[in-house]
């Protein structure tokens, strides 16, 4: 049996035996080198209550090359691409060490959720949101946790305000969207433009309405 397979089997078994870490590793398909890791969102963060899944691919030269990980669950976080789930974390790149394991790497992802690093972003838009208005960022991140990661409160909000979804997901204010929609622009276009211009929190004051209309007319 090759070294990589032996080590991976051992790691999966170790993770199964460890009930205290809350980290789970499952097979994705018949290959032992394509796995699915999952862990709960950390407490006292906007990700609390969510269940986050990670796609794991183990390269041929593992453990001498870093394991490839990306989020399956959509996450609103400066170091995670909101579109692809790609992760910006040093140990997944040049700071990898062969003594790191699937479990320890997943724990590192969990702690990445606790401590975003907006100065080294994977998603520049989200990072901009994080630095301009932390409170509004937290709200969106919490909302994404509810919608995509099965966090609490999801059903209540969907029933109450079905229209709010796409606005809240983009981290925008409903009033702002309504304002430009009432000028006759399509709702989805308004959301798109406001998101692109980062029309959020304190930044709202920096962007004139003319500028937005100009963008909407493009």
């Amino acid at each position: 049996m090759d070294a990589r397979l032996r080590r991976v089997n051992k790691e999966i078994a170790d993770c199964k035996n460890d009930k205290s870490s809350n980290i789970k590793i499952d097979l994705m398909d018949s290959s032992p080198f394509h796995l699915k890791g999952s862990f709960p969102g950390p407490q006292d963060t906007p990700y609390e209550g969510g269940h986050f899944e990670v796609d794991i691919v183990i390269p041929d030269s593992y453990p001498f090359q870093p394991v490839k990980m990306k989020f399956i669950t959509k996450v609103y976080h400066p170091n995670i691409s909101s579109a692809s789930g790609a992760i910006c974390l040093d140990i997944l790149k040049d700071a990898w060490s062969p003594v790191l394991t699937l479990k320890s790497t997943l724990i590192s992802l969990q702690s990445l959720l606790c401590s975003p690093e907006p100065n080294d972003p994977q998603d520049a838009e989200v990072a901009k949101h994080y630095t301009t208005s932390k409170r509004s960022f937290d709200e969106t991140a919490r909302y994404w946790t509810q919608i995509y990661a099965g966090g609490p409160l999801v059903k209540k909000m969907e029933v109450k305000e079905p229209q709010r979804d796409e606005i809240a997901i983009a981290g925008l204010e409903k009033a702002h969207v309504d304002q430009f929609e009432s000028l006759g622009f399509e709702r989805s276009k308004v959301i798109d433009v406001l998101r692109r211009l980062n029309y959020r929190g304190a930044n709202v004051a920096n962007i004139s309405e003319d500028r937005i209309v100009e963008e909407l007319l493009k």
Partner: protein
Amino acid sequence: MKVHIKHWSAVAQWRWNTGNVNHDQDDEGDVCGICRVPFEGCCPSCKMPGDDCPLIWGECSHVFHMHCLLKWLGTAASKQQCPMDRRAWVTAERKANELAAS
């Protein structure tokens, strides 16, 4: 009562002296951090444990199967650092003998 011993067989056990005093009752014992195989086993590229697949000690006191560590140091990604503490790897030549003597 007189007992005549007609036949006996000796059984011996060995283990590397890694300098880690707490290894006896660990659940998994001491494993190489790179391949996760016990030190007393051999690295994944060897067939027989023992002198042909020795351990290697760093000045930083970390221990690995020699073959595993050399393979890691052979990759560009290693930057010649110890996998445990990322200090520049310096092999501690006489560590094993010193431990045995002490």
